[in-house]
């Protein structure tokens, strides 16, 4: 079971509270996790990744096991701790300081 944590605005949009748990078949990668997330919550399509290119939106970052995975290839396997459900996959809205 994959755990996904999303920003508040996306949780509101998808009408969920807390983290999401997903079954992901096959390799657990950014792409497969996000595919499963969008399959469960179609309203999230286009809000994390571009509809057509599936590229990460510019102000979205992905974290796992306290590491920024935003620039990793989308088909690269996520860490074992994410695969096992010990650690969540984080979708984060970039924050500007000031």
């Amino acid at each position, binding site marked *: 079971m994959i755990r996904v944590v999303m*920003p508040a*605005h996306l949780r509101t949009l998808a009408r969920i509270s807390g983290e999401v748990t997903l079954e992901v078949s096959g390799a657990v990668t950014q792409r497969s996790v996000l595919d499963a997330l969008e399959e469960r919550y179609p309203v999230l*399509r*286009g*809000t994390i990744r571009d*509809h*057509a290119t599936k590229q990460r*939106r510019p102000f979205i970052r992905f974290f796992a096991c306290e590491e920024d995975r935003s620039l990793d290839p989308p088909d690269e396997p996520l860490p074992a701790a994410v695969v096992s459900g010990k650690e969540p996959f984080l979708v984060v809205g970039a924050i500007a300081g000031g």
Partner: protein
Amino acid sequence: MSGVRLLVGTHKGAFVLKSDGKRERWEVSGPHFAGWEIYHLKASPVDPNRIYASQSNGWFGQVVQRSDDGGTTWEPVDNKFTYAGVPGTHTWYDGTPHPWDFKRVWHFEPSLDDPDTVYAGVEDAALFRTSDGGRSWEELSGLREHNTGPRWQPGAGGLCLHTIILDPSDAKRMFIAISAAGAFRTNDGGTSWKPINKGLNSEYLPDPTAEIGHCVHHVAMHPSRPGVLFMQKHWDVMRSDDAGESWHEVSGNLPSDFGFVVDIHAHEPETIYVVPIKSDSEHVPPDGKLRVFRSRSGGNEWEPLTKGLPQENCYVNVLRDAMAIDSLEKCGIYFGTTGGQVYASADDGDSWKAIVHDLPAVFSVEVQTLP
């Protein structure tokens, strides 16, 4: 008793304001979609409970919301706006080619006879349409593919298609306006388009009377006279009596002819309203006085309407989609400011009252006159 419903889009959410026909007491609901930019909301003229809202922000992009109960509850619908074909490029601020890139919906214009059909004006400038209540969107690509398209350049707010006017006398004719490409008209339902900018004079252009490139801020049409258009341009208030074939200036005695909104009285098609703004570099009212100007002669002769509006130390802006007029007798006029006030007049503009004071910056105001 009849009533009115205001649909207010702001920097941080949408608000729905309701009143009876007296328009003295208002019930405010919201924020809907708190924290998101709501560029525009508009209801179907044939199903008043059907409302479409453009919800967006820089992080999560575009969402489209639809209400079937007058704005009480909302459901997200399709948010996929894909340009037809291979979009190519328009011209960037610095004159270089720049790929077309969808950013947001600026304006929804529901069909005059079908609640499931809605036109959407977007940035980068293009016109989309849904005919299934927002479940899917398709570009009317003849506009963006006009042979001038590669030369369209963004205004300060982006390359936005912000005005869509449907002709009630001819279902195939509509008008749109783009900052800063200008105004266009189709006579064939959106297949082909003609720039309608003859008579516009924009001193900031290398060719001030060019076919395209004019920063049109807003256009208004009275449904009883679909050939007469009023325009608030970057500078200049303009009028066309031939469906945009030619324009002439009607700024007259305005203290400034810069501004964003222009609108028309519901029952007097020669009575028009603007809110002058000091200049393109200072988006505030002249002299710190918030004044609506009314012309009862279709332009040129203008009178300031000040009763109830702040006449000192007022430095707000009124954006292009932030004025609306109901169809009661006397008709109500409404406008929102970047300071978060929504002002209402229940007497054709003679007097005003702030019906809310402290909303987020107001992007848009629409009004429904309810039975």
